[in-house]
């Protein structure tokens, strides 16, 4: 589907803040799309130590709420501080639906605020946090859009890793291994499992990981959270390398020298 910002103007929203509204609407669509297959048990799982889906959803909602509070020239309430402190703490009483509902409600509120914004006030000064750091109303709205999309991007990666690894980890089958196909731009690693690709941040991989290395995905469960870690499987790497080398060595050879087809 075409992205929100290309679907045309929002008639009820002032033109100057429409890019902010477009970004928030896009974020809401993408969040629902990315997490739709997340198992409730994986809500607080942290692949390779990265933030959990639950944290991202709480943080998206919390930051948006706080930035729009500063935009109203208000300070944070005790309730907001409490919410802030609880972000990312695994809580089995919280469901994915709870988190999505809270995010949707906050985005709806932000969009309504943007519809009623006084565009002449966009350059008015605002202060952020207890330190009262200086910004403007437009600065807060722009950061709200940028911060939201940044975390949606991180949420996408975490959700994809969880989705792609769920079956193989649970079943403990031989396909629970991944091979590093190659490293690419943006510090990303392209992994392969059963000829399917998975792209993850290079930081997810153990130090010393090289192209061609075979990785095993390990699941560690504690009382409070589940962690997924890639571990180098040196012996599997050597075995596959030996097998592939033998296969290539046994191919029929063409005579050396120039060739006429």
């Amino acid at each position: 589907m075409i992205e929100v910002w290309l679907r045309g103007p929002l008639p009820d929203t002032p033109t100057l803040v429409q890019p902010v509204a477009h970004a928030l609407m896009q974020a809401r669509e993408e969040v629902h799309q990315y997490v739709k297959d997340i198992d409730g048990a994986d809500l607080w799982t942290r692949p390779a130590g990265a933030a959990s889906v639950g944290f991202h959803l709480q943080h998206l909602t919390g930051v948006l709420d706080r930035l729009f509070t500063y935009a109203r020239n208000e300070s944070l309430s005790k309730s907001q501080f409490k919410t802030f402190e609880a972000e990312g703490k695994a809580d089995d009483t919280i469901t994915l639906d709870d988190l999505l509902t809270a995010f949707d409600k906050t985005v709806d509120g932000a969009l309504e605020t943007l519809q009623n914004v006084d565009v002449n006030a966009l350059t008015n000064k605002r202060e952020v946090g207890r330190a009262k750091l200086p910004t403007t109303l437009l600065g807060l709205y722009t950061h709200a859009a940028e911060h939201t999309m940044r975390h949606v991007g991180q949420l996408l990666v975490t959700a994809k890793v969880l989705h792609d690894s769920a079956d193989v980890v649970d079943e403990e089958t031989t396909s629970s291994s991944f091979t590093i196909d190659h490293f690419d731009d943006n510090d990303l690693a392209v992994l392969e499992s059963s000829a399917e690709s998975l792209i993850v941040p290079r930081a997810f991989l153990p130090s010393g990981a090289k192209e061609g290395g075979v990785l095993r995905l390990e699941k560690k469960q504690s009382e409070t959270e589940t962690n997924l870690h890639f571990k180098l499987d040196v012996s599997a790497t050597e075995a596959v390398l030996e097998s592939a080398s033998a296969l290539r060595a046994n191919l029929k050879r063409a005579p050396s020298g120039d060739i006429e087809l």
Partner: protein
Amino acid sequence: MKRLILLCTLLLTLLLAGCLPNLEPGPSLGEVKIHFIDVGQGDAVLIQSPSGQNVLYDGGRNNTDALSYLQNLGVLKLDLVIASHPDADHIGGLDAVIDFYAPALYMDNGVVATTQTYQNLLEAVQNAGSQLVEPTGQTITLGDAALQIIPPPTDESLNRNNRSIGLTLSFGAFDVALTGDAEEEEFEYWQTEQSELLKEVEIYKASHHGSSNGDTLESVTTFSPEVVVIGVSATNPFGHPTDEALNLYEGVGATIYRTDLDGDVVVSGLFNGQYRIETEP
């Protein structure tokens, strides 16, 4: 005898007039065709010589894109398949192509990969009975056209991109260069150890999909292309093509084509160096 001479004269006349039916769609008489196939994020380049030889350089990631393209084009025979280097976005589609066409020859860079994709490729080569060709800087003649292989460095400490097989295609005054995913180290190696194989070209395939670590100022200056074609998908997460790469190509005055925007890019080159470009989004 008189009837035979008459028949030969008629055939010759039809041939010169270009009226004979083409059994296999390919280049018109006196044209070399280079198809930069839209395989999403990856590379697949089909070379068709005027005398009917077909060479595939890389096959994209997906195992149907390149094969479907060749089949839809009506390609009946594939003579040589070249895997520039064993990254999945270059070799993922080659096993299906080799299974179908059973080319006589297969060339790779000798870097053994550990992926299932690579295993599938080698098994396809084995089953097809294709002969393995090592890239040693040889010339591969395709009638009046010729491929000059630019061999990769053998230094095993280099990453796979930097051990890509490069090549130039020459047809009279018309030249094309393909450099896989070569990065700075490989371009430096070519400049110092294989400089006699490098030349200015009309058409150039962007190295590493327009990555920030692919082409260098030296590489684009050396090949000095008039046209650069980038094999890239619109949704790739790597940021390809990067502004740095686009600036390099624009810096030498090249016109840029991108498979994410232009779809399949087909270049028809003439012996006198002239060429035309068609896109099929």
